[in-house]
């Protein structure tokens, strides 16, 4: 994406809470899951956020180091794609938690990320979910653009 593009992603308050709960539930291990939604940000000339409409929680397959790594099995990626397709949606990204670490992508995150997908990270400190951020890898893989998360709710907006 070109510099200056403001990237935004939106979800309901309920989905934002679900991501936090998942991170708390698996603490001190990382949680992970797929973000199902729609990206119409480039359609119709009107700038719109990418929308997350459902979550597809997954099991962290990294049994050797689940406290600071997550891995999604290829079959889980296929299942997430099928679940999205069945609902007329796409897998627009992935979420995971950083137990006792800030919600910032690590170097390991960067080397394993794909462009285009949204990567949501929720920080879980001592078992309590805190800051949640979203990132998109730039096409040259050198760095990330932070996406602004818009939580669709009147009360208790974004963190």
């Amino acid at each position, binding site marked *: 994406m070109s510099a200056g593009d403001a990237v935004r992603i939106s979800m309901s308050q309920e989905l934002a809470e679900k991501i936090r709960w998942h991170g708390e539930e698996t603490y001190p291990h990382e949680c992970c899951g797929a973000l199902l939604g729609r990206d119409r940000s480039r359609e119709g000339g009107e700038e719109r956020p990418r929308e997350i409409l459902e979550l597809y929680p997954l099991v962290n397959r990294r049994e050797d*180091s689940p406290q600071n790594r997550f*891995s999604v099995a290829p079959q889980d990626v296929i299942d997430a794609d099928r679940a999205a397709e069945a609902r007329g949606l796409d897998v627009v990204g992935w979420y995971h938690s950083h137990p006792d670490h*800030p919600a910032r992508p*690590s170097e390991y995150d960067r080397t394993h990320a*794909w462009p285009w997908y949204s990567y949501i990270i929720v920080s879980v400190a001592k078992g309590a979910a805190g800051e949640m951020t979203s990132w998109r890898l730039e096409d040259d893989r050198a760095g*990330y653009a932070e996406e602004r998360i818009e939580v669709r709710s009147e009360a208790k907006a974004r963190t």
Partner: protein
Amino acid sequence: MAVKVLIPPPLRPHAGGQAAAEFAAKNVEEALGQLTSEFAGLKRHLFTEEGRLRSFVNVYVNGEDIRYLAQEKTPTKDGDTINIIPSIAGGAPENGAKGSRAARVGMTDQAV
């Protein structure tokens, strides 16, 4: 009839927005070769500079990982489906390590 190649969402912007493409190909190597000649922008996301499939790219033929078949020489026939599946992984920094350099800006001190 032909061999159908499914393109995952992150690669579609480099494939004219298409979710799938069809080619007459007798193995995976041929199909991916045709795919990347039609959409040159896909090449660097699928292959290393040495021309090998990237380790973060999984390729399945009719639901089977080609690593357990004949790799890129896995034969294909009309009606087969080749699924390009991105490998999804990540995680928090090692203990004591900070975040990625690209993302370090704005990070506050942390207790590890």
